[in-house]
Protein backbone atom coordinates (compact mmCIF):
# COMPACT_ATOMS: atom_id res chain seq x y z
CA UNK A 1 0.00 0.00 0.00
CA UNK A 2 1.20 3.48 -0.73
CA UNK A 3 -0.02 6.71 0.84
CA UNK A 4 -0.31 9.66 -1.50
CA UNK A 5 2.59 11.62 -0.01
CA UNK A 6 4.67 14.31 -1.67
CA UNK A 7 8.38 14.30 -0.98
CA UNK A 8 10.14 17.68 -0.76
CA UNK A 9 13.88 17.73 -0.27
CA UNK A 10 15.05 19.85 2.64
CA UNK A 11 18.38 20.80 4.11
CA UNK A 12 17.83 19.37 7.56
CA UNK A 13 16.08 16.11 8.42
CA UNK A 14 14.02 17.20 11.43
CA UNK A 15 12.68 20.42 9.89
CA UNK A 16 12.12 18.52 6.69
CA UNK A 17 9.98 15.88 8.37
CA UNK A 18 7.92 18.57 10.13
CA UNK A 19 7.47 20.54 6.93
CA UNK A 20 6.63 17.48 4.81
CA UNK A 21 4.12 16.08 7.34
CA UNK A 22 2.46 19.49 7.73
CA UNK A 23 2.21 19.89 3.97
CA UNK A 24 0.69 16.42 3.77
CA UNK A 25 -2.04 17.52 6.17
CA UNK A 26 -2.73 20.64 4.16
CA UNK A 27 -0.71 23.27 6.04
CA UNK A 28 1.93 25.02 4.01
CA UNK A 29 4.83 25.30 6.45
CA UNK A 30 8.27 25.82 4.94
CA UNK A 31 11.44 24.32 6.33
CA UNK A 32 12.85 27.65 7.61
CA UNK A 33 9.47 28.35 9.27
CA UNK A 34 9.56 25.03 11.13
CA UNK A 35 13.17 25.67 12.13
CA UNK A 36 12.57 29.23 13.33
CA UNK A 37 9.36 28.58 15.26
CA UNK A 38 11.00 25.57 16.86
CA UNK A 39 13.96 27.78 17.87
CA UNK A 40 16.44 25.46 16.19
CA UNK A 41 19.35 27.90 15.99
CA UNK A 42 22.01 27.52 18.65
CA UNK A 43 25.64 27.23 19.40
CA UNK A 44 26.73 24.87 22.11
CA UNK A 45 29.97 23.23 23.14
CA UNK A 46 29.31 19.94 24.94
CA UNK A 47 32.54 19.11 26.77
CA UNK A 48 31.43 15.82 28.31
CA UNK A 49 30.17 14.26 25.09
CA UNK A 50 32.82 12.79 22.80
CA UNK A 51 31.76 12.15 19.21
CA UNK A 52 34.22 10.29 16.97
CA UNK A 53 36.96 10.86 19.54
CA UNK A 54 36.52 14.63 19.59
CA UNK A 55 34.43 16.94 21.80
CA UNK A 56 30.98 17.70 20.46
CA UNK A 57 29.87 21.05 19.12
CA UNK A 58 26.40 21.75 17.91
CA UNK A 59 24.83 24.53 15.90
CA UNK A 60 21.24 23.44 16.58
CA UNK A 61 18.89 22.54 19.39
CA UNK A 62 18.76 18.99 20.77
CA UNK A 63 17.25 16.33 18.50
CA UNK A 64 13.47 16.22 18.71
CA UNK A 65 13.09 19.50 20.52
CA UNK A 66 12.49 21.58 17.39
CA UNK A 67 9.36 19.60 16.54
CA UNK A 68 8.23 19.65 20.15
CA UNK A 69 8.44 23.44 20.38
CA UNK A 70 6.96 23.91 16.94
CA UNK A 71 3.94 21.78 17.82
CA UNK A 72 3.34 23.56 21.10
CA UNK A 73 3.64 27.02 19.56
CA UNK A 74 1.32 26.50 16.60
CA UNK A 75 -1.10 24.37 18.61
CA UNK A 76 -0.84 20.92 17.02
CA UNK A 77 -0.70 17.73 19.03
CA UNK A 78 1.84 15.02 18.34
CA UNK A 79 1.64 11.42 19.33
CA UNK A 80 5.02 9.94 20.23
CA UNK A 81 5.96 6.44 21.20
CA UNK A 82 9.11 4.49 21.99
CA UNK A 83 9.32 0.73 22.26
CA UNK A 84 11.26 -1.94 24.05
CA UNK A 85 10.54 -4.65 21.51
CA UNK A 86 11.14 -4.32 17.77
CA UNK A 87 7.99 -6.38 17.06
CA UNK A 88 5.80 -3.86 18.85
CA UNK A 89 7.50 -0.99 17.03
CA UNK A 90 6.88 -2.67 13.70
CA UNK A 91 3.26 -3.47 14.51
CA UNK A 92 2.54 0.16 15.41
CA UNK A 93 4.18 1.38 12.21
CA UNK A 94 2.20 -1.06 10.04
CA UNK A 95 -1.02 -0.11 11.80
CA UNK A 96 -0.50 3.56 10.96
CA UNK A 97 0.35 2.85 7.36
CA UNK A 98 -2.81 0.78 7.08
CA UNK A 99 -4.77 3.80 8.33
CA UNK A 100 -3.24 5.93 5.61
CA UNK A 101 -1.13 7.88 8.07
CA UNK A 102 2.46 8.71 7.10
CA UNK A 103 4.68 8.77 10.21
CA UNK A 104 8.00 10.26 11.27
CA UNK A 105 10.69 7.95 12.61
CA UNK A 106 13.90 8.64 14.47
CA UNK A 107 16.71 6.42 13.17
CA UNK A 108 20.45 5.81 13.41
CA UNK A 109 22.58 6.66 10.41
CA UNK A 110 25.25 3.95 10.67
CA UNK A 111 23.16 1.22 9.04
CA UNK A 112 21.24 3.47 6.66
CA UNK A 113 22.14 1.67 3.44
CA UNK A 114 21.22 4.41 0.97
CA UNK A 115 23.69 6.89 2.54
CA UNK A 116 27.21 7.08 1.07
CA UNK A 117 29.59 4.94 3.18
CA UNK A 118 31.66 7.96 4.21
CA UNK A 119 28.63 9.53 5.85
CA UNK A 120 27.63 6.53 7.92
CA UNK A 121 28.63 7.37 11.47
CA UNK A 122 27.00 6.36 14.74
CA UNK A 123 24.64 9.30 14.78
CA UNK A 124 21.23 8.42 16.12
CA UNK A 125 19.12 11.51 15.63
CA UNK A 126 18.28 11.27 11.97
CA UNK A 127 14.62 11.58 10.93
CA UNK A 128 12.62 10.27 8.01
CA UNK A 129 9.04 9.61 6.95
CA UNK A 130 7.58 6.21 6.10
CA UNK A 131 4.69 6.59 3.66
CA UNK A 132 3.88 3.05 2.58
CA UNK A 133 4.80 -0.59 2.41
CA UNK A 134 4.98 -3.00 -0.47
CA UNK A 135 5.42 -6.67 0.53
CA UNK A 136 8.28 -6.45 3.03
CA UNK A 137 9.71 -3.18 1.74
CA UNK A 138 8.97 0.17 3.33
CA UNK A 139 8.62 3.30 1.20
CA UNK A 140 10.84 5.99 2.70
CA UNK A 141 10.87 9.74 2.25
CA UNK A 142 14.17 10.90 3.71
CA UNK A 143 14.06 14.72 3.63
CA UNK A 144 17.77 15.19 2.93
CA UNK A 145 17.64 12.95 -0.16
CA UNK A 146 16.62 14.29 -3.54
CA UNK A 147 14.10 11.53 -4.18
CA UNK A 148 12.21 8.88 -2.23
CA UNK A 149 13.84 5.55 -1.43
CA UNK A 150 13.09 2.18 0.21
CA UNK A 151 14.26 -0.01 3.09
CA UNK A 152 13.51 -3.66 3.79
CA UNK A 153 11.87 -4.67 7.06
CA UNK A 154 15.18 -5.89 8.41
CA UNK A 155 17.07 -2.77 7.37
CA UNK A 156 14.46 -0.51 8.94
CA UNK A 157 14.46 -2.46 12.19
CA UNK A 158 18.22 -2.13 12.40
CA UNK A 159 18.19 1.66 12.10
CA UNK A 160 15.18 2.08 14.40
CA UNK A 161 16.97 0.12 17.11
CA UNK A 162 20.44 1.58 16.72
CA UNK A 163 22.31 1.87 20.03
CA UNK A 164 24.51 4.48 21.65
CA UNK A 165 23.87 8.14 22.53
CA UNK A 166 20.31 9.27 21.67
CA UNK A 167 19.29 5.68 20.86
CA UNK A 168 15.99 5.98 18.96
CA UNK A 169 14.30 2.93 20.58
CA UNK A 170 11.90 2.71 17.67
CA UNK A 171 10.73 6.30 18.24
CA UNK A 172 7.66 6.97 16.09
CA UNK A 173 5.75 10.27 15.93
CA UNK A 174 2.97 11.90 13.96
CA UNK A 175 0.60 14.85 14.35
CA UNK A 176 -2.88 13.84 15.55
CA UNK A 177 -4.75 17.05 16.23
CA UNK A 178 -4.69 20.34 14.33
CA UNK A 179 -6.17 23.76 15.16
CA UNK A 180 -8.61 25.29 12.64
CA UNK A 181 -5.99 27.76 11.58
CA UNK A 182 -2.33 27.94 12.42
CA UNK A 183 -1.53 31.03 14.47
CA UNK A 184 1.85 31.68 12.91
CA UNK A 185 2.32 35.30 14.12
CA UNK A 186 2.39 34.46 17.80
CA UNK A 187 4.43 31.32 17.20
CA UNK A 188 7.07 33.26 15.25
CA UNK A 189 7.46 35.83 18.03
CA UNK A 190 7.82 33.09 20.61
CA UNK A 191 10.33 31.22 18.47
CA UNK A 192 12.50 34.29 17.92
CA UNK A 193 12.41 35.31 21.58
CA UNK A 194 13.54 31.86 22.64
CA UNK A 195 16.42 31.87 20.16
CA UNK A 196 17.57 35.30 21.39
CA UNK A 197 17.45 34.04 24.95
CA UNK A 198 19.51 30.95 24.11
CA UNK A 199 22.11 32.82 22.09
CA UNK A 200 22.57 35.52 24.75
CA UNK A 201 22.40 33.12 27.71
CA UNK A 202 24.85 33.76 30.55
CA UNK A 203 26.20 30.21 30.33
CA UNK A 204 29.84 29.76 29.29
CA UNK A 205 29.27 26.97 26.75
CA UNK A 206 26.07 28.26 25.18
CA UNK A 207 25.33 30.79 22.44
CA UNK A 208 27.61 33.77 21.95
CA UNK A 209 29.57 32.92 25.09
CA UNK A 210 29.99 29.38 23.81
CA UNK A 211 31.53 30.68 20.58
CA UNK A 212 34.04 32.77 22.58
CA UNK A 213 34.79 29.78 24.78
CA UNK A 214 35.47 27.68 21.69
CA UNK A 215 37.83 30.34 20.34
CA UNK A 216 39.79 30.11 23.59
CA UNK A 217 39.94 26.32 23.30
CA UNK A 218 41.26 26.54 19.75
CA UNK A 219 44.12 28.76 20.92
CA UNK A 220 45.04 26.20 23.57
CA UNK A 221 44.66 22.98 21.55
CA UNK A 222 47.97 22.89 19.64
CA UNK A 223 50.01 23.20 22.86
CA UNK A 224 47.77 21.16 25.10
CA UNK A 225 46.67 18.39 22.73
CA UNK A 226 49.32 18.40 20.03
CA UNK A 227 48.89 19.38 16.39
CA UNK A 228 47.29 16.10 15.33
CA UNK A 229 44.48 16.25 17.87
CA UNK A 230 44.06 19.99 17.45
CA UNK A 231 43.48 19.47 13.74
CA UNK A 232 41.10 16.61 14.36
CA UNK A 233 39.05 18.74 16.77
CA UNK A 234 39.05 21.68 14.39
CA UNK A 235 37.83 19.39 11.62
CA UNK A 236 35.05 18.26 13.92
CA UNK A 237 33.86 21.86 14.37
CA UNK A 238 33.75 22.42 10.63
CA UNK A 239 31.99 19.12 10.05
CA UNK A 240 29.29 19.93 12.60
CA UNK A 241 28.89 23.36 11.04
CA UNK A 242 28.69 22.31 7.41
CA UNK A 243 27.51 18.71 7.49
CA UNK A 244 24.52 17.75 5.41
CA UNK A 245 21.48 19.26 6.99
CA UNK A 246 22.77 22.64 8.05
CA UNK A 247 21.86 24.35 4.79
CA UNK A 248 25.32 25.95 5.01
CA UNK A 249 26.96 28.23 7.58
CA UNK A 250 25.84 26.27 10.63
CA UNK A 251 22.09 26.85 10.04
CA UNK A 252 22.63 30.64 9.82
CA UNK A 253 21.27 30.77 6.25
CA UNK A 254 18.13 28.84 7.13
CA UNK A 255 17.57 31.22 10.03
CA UNK A 256 18.02 34.20 7.69
CA UNK A 257 15.44 32.66 5.34
CA UNK A 258 13.10 32.30 8.31
CA UNK A 259 13.50 35.98 9.23
CA UNK A 260 12.81 37.02 5.66
CA UNK A 261 9.62 34.95 5.52
CA UNK A 262 8.58 36.24 8.96
CA UNK A 263 9.05 39.87 7.99
CA UNK A 264 6.31 39.40 5.38
CA UNK A 265 3.95 37.53 7.70
CA UNK A 266 4.38 39.98 10.60
CA UNK A 267 4.70 42.95 8.26
CA UNK A 268 7.94 44.05 9.94
CA UNK A 269 10.53 45.41 7.48
CA UNK A 270 13.10 45.40 10.31
CA UNK A 271 13.24 41.62 10.16
CA UNK A 272 14.05 41.70 6.47
CA UNK A 273 17.04 43.96 7.21
CA UNK A 274 18.11 41.64 10.01
CA UNK A 275 17.82 38.70 7.63
CA UNK A 276 20.43 40.36 5.39
CA UNK A 277 22.67 40.84 8.39
CA UNK A 278 22.31 37.17 9.35
CA UNK A 279 23.25 36.17 5.80
CA UNK A 280 26.50 38.12 6.20
CA UNK A 281 27.15 36.38 9.52
CA UNK A 282 26.58 33.07 7.74
CA UNK A 283 29.21 34.14 5.20
CA UNK A 284 31.63 34.79 8.07
CA UNK A 285 31.07 31.24 9.32
CA UNK A 286 31.81 29.96 5.82
CA UNK A 287 35.06 32.00 5.75
CA UNK A 288 36.00 30.48 9.09
CA UNK A 289 35.45 26.99 7.63
CA UNK A 290 37.66 27.79 4.64
CA UNK A 291 40.52 29.02 6.81
CA UNK A 292 40.15 26.17 9.30
CA UNK A 293 40.29 23.65 6.45
CA UNK A 294 43.61 25.17 5.34
CA UNK A 295 45.02 24.29 8.76
CA UNK A 296 44.01 20.66 8.84
CA UNK A 297 44.87 20.20 5.18
CA UNK A 298 48.61 20.62 5.79
CA UNK A 299 49.70 18.99 9.00
CA UNK A 300 52.54 21.38 9.77
CA UNK A 301 50.39 24.37 10.58
CA UNK A 302 51.92 27.19 12.56
CA UNK A 303 50.51 28.17 15.90
CA UNK A 304 49.69 31.52 14.41
CA UNK A 305 47.10 29.91 12.15
CA UNK A 306 45.12 28.68 15.16
CA UNK A 307 45.13 32.16 16.66
CA UNK A 308 43.89 33.47 13.34
CA UNK A 309 40.80 31.22 13.18
CA UNK A 310 40.18 31.77 16.89
CA UNK A 311 40.12 35.49 16.22
CA UNK A 312 37.65 34.90 13.39
CA UNK A 313 35.34 33.12 15.82
CA UNK A 314 35.62 35.97 18.30
CA UNK A 315 34.63 38.46 15.61
CA UNK A 316 31.64 36.24 14.73
CA UNK A 317 30.67 36.09 18.42
CA UNK A 318 30.72 39.89 18.62
CA UNK A 319 28.60 40.17 15.49
CA UNK A 320 26.08 37.64 16.75
CA UNK A 321 25.85 39.34 20.12
CA UNK A 322 24.97 42.65 18.49
CA UNK A 323 22.63 40.89 16.09
CA UNK A 324 20.58 39.04 18.70
CA UNK A 325 20.30 42.12 20.89
CA UNK A 326 18.87 44.00 17.91
CA UNK A 327 16.57 41.10 17.05
CA UNK A 328 15.27 41.04 20.61
CA UNK A 329 14.35 44.71 20.36
CA UNK A 330 12.82 44.31 16.89
CA UNK A 331 10.38 41.68 18.09
CA UNK A 332 9.24 43.50 21.23
Amino acid at each position, binding site marked *: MEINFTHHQS*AHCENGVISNLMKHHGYNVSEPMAFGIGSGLLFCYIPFLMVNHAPAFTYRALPGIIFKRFAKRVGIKIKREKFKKPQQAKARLDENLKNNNPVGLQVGVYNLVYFP*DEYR*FHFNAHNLVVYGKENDTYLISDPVM*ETVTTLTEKELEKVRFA*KGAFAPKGHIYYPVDFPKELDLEKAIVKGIKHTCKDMLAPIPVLGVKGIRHTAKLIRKWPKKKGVKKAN*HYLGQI*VRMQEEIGTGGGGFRYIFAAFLQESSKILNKPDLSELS*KEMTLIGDSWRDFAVDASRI*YKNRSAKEDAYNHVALQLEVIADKEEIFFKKLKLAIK
Partner: protein
Amino acid sequence: MKKDEVPQDKSNLESANFKELCYAVDENGEYTTVNSSGWDPKTIALNKAIEDINERVEDAKQRVLNNKTSPIEYYMEFHKMDLPILSSYVGLWKWRVKRHFKPKVFQKLSNNLLIKYADVFDISIEQLKDINLHGN
Protein backbone atom coordinates in the same frame (compact mmCIF):
# COMPACT_ATOMS: atom_id res chain seq x y z
CA MET B 1 25.74 33.36 0.27
CA LYS B 2 24.44 34.21 -3.19
CA LYS B 3 22.76 31.67 -5.40
CA ASP B 4 25.65 31.52 -7.85
CA GLU B 5 28.16 31.20 -5.00
CA VAL B 6 26.78 27.86 -3.81
CA PRO B 7 29.81 25.58 -4.19
CA GLN B 8 29.68 22.74 -6.69
CA ASP B 9 32.86 20.91 -5.75
CA LYS B 10 33.49 17.23 -6.22
CA SER B 11 32.71 15.21 -3.09
CA ASN B 12 31.85 11.81 -1.66
CA LEU B 13 28.18 12.50 -2.38
CA GLU B 14 28.84 11.59 -5.99
CA SER B 15 29.03 7.88 -5.22
CA ALA B 16 25.44 7.90 -3.92
CA ASN B 17 24.37 10.15 -6.74
CA PHE B 18 22.73 12.84 -4.64
CA LYS B 19 23.13 16.52 -3.99
CA GLU B 20 22.43 18.29 -0.77
CA LEU B 21 20.26 21.35 -0.31
CA CYS B 22 21.68 24.75 0.57
CA TYR B 23 19.99 28.06 1.31
CA ALA B 24 21.10 31.11 -0.66
CA VAL B 25 19.75 34.46 -1.89
CA ASP B 26 18.83 35.15 -5.50
CA GLU B 27 19.37 38.34 -7.57
CA ASN B 28 16.48 40.09 -5.80
CA GLY B 29 17.75 39.24 -2.33
CA GLU B 30 15.03 36.61 -1.84
CA TYR B 31 15.94 33.33 -0.16
CA THR B 32 15.78 30.20 -2.25
CA THR B 33 17.24 26.70 -2.17
CA VAL B 34 20.01 25.42 -4.40
CA ASN B 35 21.42 21.92 -4.73
CA SER B 36 25.11 21.56 -4.06
CA SER B 37 27.35 18.69 -5.13
CA GLY B 38 29.77 19.41 -2.29
CA TRP B 39 32.23 21.88 -0.82
CA ASP B 40 35.98 21.31 -0.50
CA PRO B 41 36.50 22.54 3.08
CA LYS B 42 34.04 20.01 4.42
CA THR B 43 35.09 17.24 2.05
CA ILE B 44 38.62 17.67 3.39
CA ALA B 45 37.31 17.55 6.97
CA LEU B 46 35.35 14.39 6.25
CA ASN B 47 38.25 12.71 4.45
CA LYS B 48 40.53 13.58 7.35
CA ALA B 49 38.08 12.00 9.77
CA ILE B 50 37.96 8.84 7.66
CA GLU B 51 41.75 8.79 7.40
CA ASP B 52 41.93 8.98 11.20
CA ILE B 53 39.54 6.06 11.52
CA ASN B 54 41.56 4.00 9.04
CA GLU B 55 44.68 4.74 11.06
CA ARG B 56 42.95 3.58 14.22
CA VAL B 57 41.80 0.39 12.49
CA GLU B 58 45.29 -0.34 11.18
CA ASP B 59 46.80 0.33 14.60
CA ALA B 60 44.30 -2.01 16.26
CA LYS B 61 45.01 -4.66 13.63
CA GLN B 62 48.75 -4.57 14.34
CA ARG B 63 48.12 -4.83 18.06
CA VAL B 64 45.86 -7.84 17.54
CA LEU B 65 48.51 -9.52 15.40
CA ASN B 66 51.11 -8.81 18.11
CA ASN B 67 48.76 -10.24 20.70
CA LYS B 68 48.49 -6.91 22.53
CA THR B 69 44.71 -6.72 22.27
CA SER B 70 41.80 -8.93 21.26
CA PRO B 71 40.02 -8.90 17.88
CA ILE B 72 37.07 -7.18 19.59
CA GLU B 73 38.95 -3.90 19.65
CA TYR B 74 39.83 -4.25 15.97
CA TYR B 75 36.21 -4.87 14.98
CA MET B 76 35.06 -2.02 17.21
CA GLU B 77 37.36 0.41 15.42
CA PHE B 78 36.42 -1.07 12.05
CA HIS B 79 32.77 -0.26 12.74
CA LYS B 80 33.63 3.33 13.73
CA MET B 81 32.53 2.58 17.29
CA ASP B 82 33.96 3.57 20.63
CA LEU B 83 33.64 1.86 24.00
CA PRO B 84 30.27 3.39 25.04
CA ILE B 85 28.68 2.56 21.67
CA LEU B 86 29.97 -1.01 21.57
CA SER B 87 28.96 -1.68 25.16
CA SER B 88 25.41 -0.49 24.48
CA TYR B 89 25.20 -2.68 21.36
CA VAL B 90 26.27 -5.84 23.19
CA GLY B 91 24.40 -4.85 26.34
CA LEU B 92 27.37 -5.20 28.69
CA TRP B 93 29.05 -2.82 31.12
CA LYS B 94 31.89 -0.80 29.62
CA TRP B 95 34.43 -2.29 32.02
CA ARG B 96 33.48 -5.78 30.92
CA VAL B 97 33.92 -4.97 27.25
CA LYS B 98 37.24 -3.34 28.05
CA ARG B 99 38.30 -6.45 29.90
CA HIS B 100 37.45 -8.51 26.82
CA PHE B 101 40.12 -6.55 24.96
CA LYS B 102 42.72 -8.53 26.90
CA PRO B 103 43.82 -11.46 24.72
CA LYS B 104 43.95 -13.79 27.72
CA VAL B 105 40.41 -12.96 28.77
CA PHE B 106 39.20 -13.16 25.19
CA GLN B 107 40.54 -16.72 24.86
CA LYS B 108 38.29 -17.84 27.69
CA LEU B 109 35.07 -16.10 26.60
CA SER B 110 31.96 -18.26 26.63
CA ASN B 111 30.29 -19.14 23.38
CA ASN B 112 27.27 -17.03 24.27
CA LEU B 113 29.35 -13.91 24.61
CA LEU B 114 31.20 -14.64 21.39
CA ILE B 115 27.88 -14.97 19.57
CA LYS B 116 26.80 -11.61 20.99
CA TYR B 117 29.88 -9.89 19.65
CA ALA B 118 29.73 -11.71 16.32
CA ASP B 119 26.11 -10.63 15.86
CA VAL B 120 26.89 -7.00 16.56
CA PHE B 121 29.76 -7.02 14.06
CA ASP B 122 27.74 -9.10 11.60
CA ILE B 123 30.45 -11.77 11.24
CA SER B 124 30.94 -15.45 12.06
CA ILE B 125 32.57 -16.66 15.26
CA GLU B 126 35.55 -17.92 13.26
CA GLN B 127 36.03 -14.43 11.86
CA LEU B 128 35.71 -12.98 15.33
CA LYS B 129 38.49 -15.20 16.57
CA ASP B 130 40.77 -14.65 13.59
CA ILE B 131 40.84 -11.21 11.98
CA ASN B 132 42.71 -12.59 8.98
CA LEU B 133 39.43 -14.15 7.86
CA HIS B 134 37.79 -10.73 7.79
CA GLY B 135 37.32 -9.22 4.32
CA ASN B 136 38.85 -5.76 3.70
